[in-house]
């Protein structure tokens, strides 16, 4: 007689909630009493991935700490759309100082809390990719190197969206931005090494580094929880699609994040003390075209004068990620039916 594992819950761990599993195993986001760290009425664009990512991460941090977090925010979309005087969307203690100093400000908050003996209160620093990989990078590296007790979260939407979609060091090759227009023989952003901050963070040997996307809530929440169970410098890099900057439909935000992971373009993994300890393998691998064609920032690769050569180079990046992190598992046995 064929047997099947019973621990199968219809939507498994892919959806936000699941009426069939115990409350304890459900996501923070499925809880009607979640914090809503960032509340309604914020002025993010329709379908904003960053607003979603911030709520996911901070609500998870709130649960992990029993509601004791302080957030430090860099300048950027998240700051601007959440706190235009006289309204704030935050429900947690929150401080915005500057664009490039959020990691250092977070260090200061953590130091103050330690001095005051409030070690149960934890600090989360957060910034977009500009505030993390570019202008805030010095402070970030310093915070890592000192191993300050801060979880720093980068919401990566691959560009300076707040200022009108300019290139950052996190902008992928070939993507069109206002400062890497789709003109000339190499349209869009140039191909280069990129600045892979999760790997750079790992090189600091900090206790915890992880990447996540807004498409996999369970994974993201688990990583926040893991991060909050540790002390010292921790880094979480969350992939958050930007409908405005990417020229994608507002309803595609989560879908695009999923495709970024499923193509291999955005590797999802975690590392402790500089060593990769876990990777999220690709569930249904798709070629990069499936991801690219949904975004107008890559429109110049398709259409009347298509650039299959450039698409191929982008596919190569995905393939390299797949090889580097072992994102594709051929062996059926390793797939868990229980989810």
């Amino acid at each position, binding site marked *: 007689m064929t047997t099947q594992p019973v621990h199968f819950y219809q939507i498994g761990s892919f959806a936000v909630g699941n009426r069939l599993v115990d409350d304890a195993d459900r996501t923070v986001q499925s809880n*009607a009493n979640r914090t809503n760290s960032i509340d309604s009425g914020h002025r993010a664009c329709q*379908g904003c991935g960053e607003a979603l990512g911030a709520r996911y991460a901070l609500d998870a941090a709130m649960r992990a700490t029993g509601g004791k977090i302080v957030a430090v925010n860099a300048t950027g979309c998240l700051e601007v759309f959440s706190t235009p005087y006289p309204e704030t969307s935050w429900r947690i203690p929150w401080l915005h100082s500057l664009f490039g100093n959020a990691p250092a400000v977070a260090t200061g908050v953590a130091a103050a809390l330690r001095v005051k003996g409030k070690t149960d209160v934890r600090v989360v620093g957060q910034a977009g990719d500009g505030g993390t990989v570019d202008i805030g990078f010095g402070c970030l590296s310093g915070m890592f190197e000192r191993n300050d007790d801060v979880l720093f979260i980068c919401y990566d939407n691959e560009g300076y969206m707040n200022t009108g979609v300019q290139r950052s060091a996190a902008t992928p090759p070939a993507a069109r931005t206002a400062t890497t227009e789709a003109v000339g023989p190499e349209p869009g952003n140039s191909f280069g090494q990129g600045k892979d901050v999760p790997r750079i963070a790992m090189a600091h040997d900090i206790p915890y580094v992880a990447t996540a996307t807004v498409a996999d809530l369970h994974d993201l929440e688990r990583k926040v929880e893991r991060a909050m169970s540790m002390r010292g410098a921790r880094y979480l890099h969350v992939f958050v699609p930007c409908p405005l900057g990417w020229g994608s439909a*507002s309803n595609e935000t989560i879908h695009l994040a999923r495709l970024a992971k499923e193509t291999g373009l955005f590797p999802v993994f975690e590392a402790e003390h500089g060593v990769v300890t876990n990777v999220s393998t690709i569930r249904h691998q798709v070629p990069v075209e499936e991801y690219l064609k949904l975004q107008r920032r890559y429109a110049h690769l398709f259409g009347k004068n298509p650039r299959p050569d450039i698409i191929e180079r982008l596919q190569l990046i995905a393939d390299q990620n797949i090889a580097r992190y072992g994102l594709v598992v051929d062996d059926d046995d390793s797939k868990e039916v229980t989810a």
Partner: protein
Amino acid sequence: MERPFAITLDVGSSRSNHTGSWRVERPVYVDRLPPCNNACPAGENIQGWLYEAESGNYEGAWRKLVEENPLPAIMGRICFHPCETACNRVQVDEAVGINAVERFLGDIAIEKGWTIPEAGVDTGKRILVVGAGPAGLSATYHLRRLGHQVRLVDSSAQLGGMMRYGIPAYRLPRAILDAEIARIIAMGVEVELNYVVHDIDKERKAGGFDAVFLAVGAQLGRRVSIPAGDSSRVIDAVSFLHQVADDDPPLLGRRVVVYGGGDTAFDAARTAKRLGATEAVIVYRRNRERMGAHSVELEQAEVEGITVRWLSTVNRFESEQMVLEKMRLNAEGFPEPTGEYEELDADALVLALGQDTDLSLLDQAKDVVVRNGVVEVEATMMTGENGVFAGGDVVPTDRTATIAVGHGKRAAFGIDAYVNGRDVPEKVRHDLATFERLNTWYYADAPRTKRPELERIRRQGTFDEVIGGLTEENALFEARRCLSCGNCFECDNCFGVCPDNAVIKLGPSQRYQFDYDFCKGCGICVKECPCGAIEMVPEKI
């Protein structure tokens, strides 16, 4: 604390900024018709009872099931489950094993002695049901629930119609059949067996019936003229199976040829095999693709050693010698003779070429329209004669037990409306929940559970049931494979994926509500709803 002006703000104050004004489209929750429900001839709310089964509430699931169909243990065995053919999960991996879960529920109900709903408050109306097959039993059940008195008559010695006399016991064990019929009869039904109705109008008038449901089935095996010697044993499949059911099987010899390609042909061949035939051969004039029988029948038959001669017709049968003519399919797919012949040794020929109805009881009922040997009915199953309803194999339809059950139910409601002098209320039918509307990413990968099958050796001499049931664990697993197409199953996705927290979670089984004060109309909830139960509609601006 004194807040520095404009520098420091009080938490959550953005709720005064109603971003809903940005919206040009709004999401709305919808319910859609799942393809299984749409395909179920018996009108079962399959998705509904699977939903209950998913949480292990088997009794709740069974109760929801028998709301529509009082014969789940039977259906779980003999229904050809068009629900599974229609199931959207086919496009993900394999269809949900609805039929297997239905059987599991039916069996556990029998085992635990769960009782079907009691008869309704007596209306004083008397209904005559002629024929105690699936249509008649289904009608009886629903009529009793509606409070009408039922007299159920049948020409055979036992209840069940074709379920008893056409379907072999290895497919439908008699204990199961008896148990589910008994539950219906226990609702308080006047039953008379071995009772033949000769004139429907006379019968109605004599009994003072307010309405009649005619469900006598198609009991006559169709014959064709095949040159055959006097000594050759030729029998039609209906009679053959009926005699087997009456425990009086005819002697067919060792080599049995069954002529036909429908389910009955396979029932006959597999039964012959169990009665001791060493060879059971099915002769069919078309090919495998055009076979009328359900493929599962062929698969089972082949396992049991039955062979099929495709593209062949029986030309003549004399002295244990049968001559087959080879056929070919023409451009339209119809078989044509080729003039090539081959011989086959055979002791008996069973004709499984279809069944006809015996409608002699309608000879005097002038308003009942009979065309091509079947009775014309309207949507309520009423014939041309007021108060005379018909269903099952006597009306134009595919002749399956499940369709008959559906007819019985529809007729019951038609009769109820008729005797009360009102119209059958129109049912709201939602748009179909098509596969394109689903976001199947969210469903965990899960191949279908296979039902255990009886070892081949035990199928040869016995009528033991071939296909087993699911264990509870497997049934639960199988139920949870349901995608809940088109209807919210409270996965919290919309609640979780909204960047504006504009979805309000109302609590268990209360579903959700949009907070249009803040919903910006991005549409992520629609895109990420696994089951397609949200849609965007333009705002009136």
